[in-house]
């Protein structure tokens, strides 16, 4: 259990693990996440599932290397084990035949939107996907997204691949082409999800976003993942992580995500110092 069967570098600083866990693989649905704890002194971190296969008994997780925990996680290799994985957590994405849907994935959000797009495609929707990245080298999951989408649009901030611009530029264009869009799903950085929601708001297109606040237990016990939805406090771990993008207080989400900025920096510095000493010795 929890053995890493496959490690794949999707882009600089973005890694995919295929992990053995029959229990979670059997129950997982698009939009759900797991909480992992790497080893004895590690913190618990939430990671959205990129894929799951009940027959093979495996789940896929994708993470971006940002802090100490993800740096440490990235040092694991095939055959290594993750100490604890709990899940699948959160409410699954509501999937049915809505008609025409747009799935927007930004950066490390693309792997998370992938099972949603696939589920929507399998339910008979016309799936238009937009995936964006800073530049070509950070573009990930293109082949996979192509396979589950009727149309795939690609944007990069610097224009090194696909269309130059943001995912919202492509989204605006699609909406302006007068195609009837029944629903939009967006996963990515907070600013991106906010921009997508602002883009669809004037058109009253129902837009769902997957929020990524700080979590601890992930089962509704601690309440650190409080988010404000339409002025009401919700726990993202049990009430979400998916919410109506037009009702989310993004500013609060961003600021709460900064709670432990100072501690995270301290942990990374200490980690790099120890690592350097270790590597030299």
């Amino acid at each position, binding site marked *: 259990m929890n053995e890493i069967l496959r490690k794949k570098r999707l882009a600089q600083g973005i890694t995919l693990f295929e992990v053995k866990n029959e229990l979670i693989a059997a129950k997982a649905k698009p939009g759900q996440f797991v909480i992992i704890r790497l080893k004895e002194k590690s913190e618990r971190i939430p990671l959205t599932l990129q894929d799951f296969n009940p027959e093979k008994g495996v789940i896929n997780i994708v993470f971006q290397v940002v802090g100490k925990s993800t740096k440490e996680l990235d040092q694991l290799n095939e055959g290594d084990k993750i100490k604890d994985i709990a899940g699948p957590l959160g409410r699954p994405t509501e999937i049915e035949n809505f008609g025409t849907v747009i799935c927007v994935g930004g950066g490390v959000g693309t792997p998370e939107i992938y099972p949603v797009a696939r589920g929507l495609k399998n339910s008979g929707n016309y799936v238009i996907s937009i995936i964006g990245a800073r530049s070509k080298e950070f573009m990930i999951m293109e082949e996979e997204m192509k396979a589950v989408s009727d149309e795939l649009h690609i944007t990069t901030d610097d224009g090194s691949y696909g269309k130059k611009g943001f995912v919202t530029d492509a989204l605006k264009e699609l909406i302006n082409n007068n195609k009837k869009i029944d629903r939009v799903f967006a996963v990515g950085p907070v600013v991106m999800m906010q921009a997508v929601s602002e883009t669809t708001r004037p058109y009253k297109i129902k837009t769902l976003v997957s929020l990524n606040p700080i979590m601890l237990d992930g089962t509704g016990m601690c*309440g650190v993942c409080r988010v404000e939805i339409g002025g009401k406090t919700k726990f993202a771990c049990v009430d979400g992580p998916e919410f109506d993008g037009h009702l989310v207080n993004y500013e609060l989400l961003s600021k709460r995500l900064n709670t432990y900025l100072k501690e995270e920096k301290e942990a990374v510095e200490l980690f790099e110092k120890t690592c350097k000493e270790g590597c030299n010795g």
Partner: protein
Amino acid sequence: MAKKIIPHKIPMKEQPPERRIKNFDEVPYGYTEEEAIQEAKRCLQCKKATCIDGCPVEIDIPGFIEAIAQGDFRSAIKRLKEKNVLPAVCGRVCPQEEQCENFCALNKKYEPVGIGRLERFIADWEARQGPAPLPKIPEKTGKKVAVIGAGPGGLTVAGDLIQLGHSVTIFEALHRPGGVLVYGIPEFRLPKAIVYREVDYLIRCGVELKLNFVVGKTATIDQLLEEFDAVYIGTGAGLPWFMNIPGENLNGVYSANEYLTRSNLMKAYLFPEYDTPIVKGKQVAVIGGGNVAMDCARTALRLGADEVRIVYRRSKKEMPARNEEIHHAEEEGIIFEFLTLPVKYIGDENNWVRKMECIRMKLGEPDASGRRRPVPIEGSNFTLPVDTVICAIGQSPNPLIPQTTPDLKVAKWGNIEVDPRTGKTSKKRCWAGGDVVRGGATVILAMGDARIAARSIDEYLRTGVW
């Protein structure tokens, strides 16, 4: 011949306040063998032992105390463990003053026998002798029981049923067993090694433990019932309450559950050796007057706060915390703001809490709980500077199981309904007890519920009659 009565409990030595507020080590040291024997000799060995009536798990109190008095510690622990699988825990965290000690015959005129202290002593004595000898376990019945939640209730059910020959598997959502004993109660009040020792004992008895298993998510109750003959739900009260006042989502405002889980389960007090961070506030306000509020306040102090306030809307008399906890908090310099209610939190531009606005209260007519209802004094608003706020006003049961078990009857606040005589829920082959039934109560009441349910489960497994 009348025995000479020693009016007071033999004192239990403890870390002095000025030293202990700088560490997370346990506060009381516990009795030495001589002290324990002396205290045990205070027991009158009443023929009709009313103390037992005050014990939710019906420990033979005069029995184990007599054995201590005779220096026969081996028999004492054996007597105790017949009824209590977690004596080292209960000796530390039970509200003895309301239970056994309240009913002690000495209590009418003198201090009662220190039953809790003696329970703790004998459990710790056993631990020092090496791994506890295992009880004789009867032949397997072939029946399988799933216990959901490795807290005090779940551990008690597991201990009782494994000793009756049933197979028991405990499913725990977190990565450590112990439930509130591990995530909630701080190290300085209940060292975690004690909890793990008790869990280890159960595992050596044959109990299976599955961690990281979130029932309701990883599997539903109905799926467990396909494999197991009976299910005990002891998932506790894991949904924290907030007051729904402005500013509660500011950074630095915690639920007690989060604050304590970070510090206790994740060992954030050892950051950065452990990865989980916690805000080490300098001016801390803890909202609430229960044991959990005391735990939060004393934790904040140990994390380096300059000033820690307990903000409680009623007066000292109505505080639900144990006297011992209030006493320890006072000794350590916690400031009590009685008859005070927060009305809003004020933050800075980065969403960090900086001030709290409060209103003073006065006591009015008694409410449903029999305590005088606090009413706001208009115009008495004032502000306090704070950089950390911990909301310890209570919690209700976690909804994950009721949400995924449609035929399980729940009452207001999401508490599971049970027959109090058996612990049976509305769903066949499912029992429940502890905080998931009662809302926020105590460790020992959860263990009492568990004992009742274990009896009923065993009867069902033997007879097949629901």
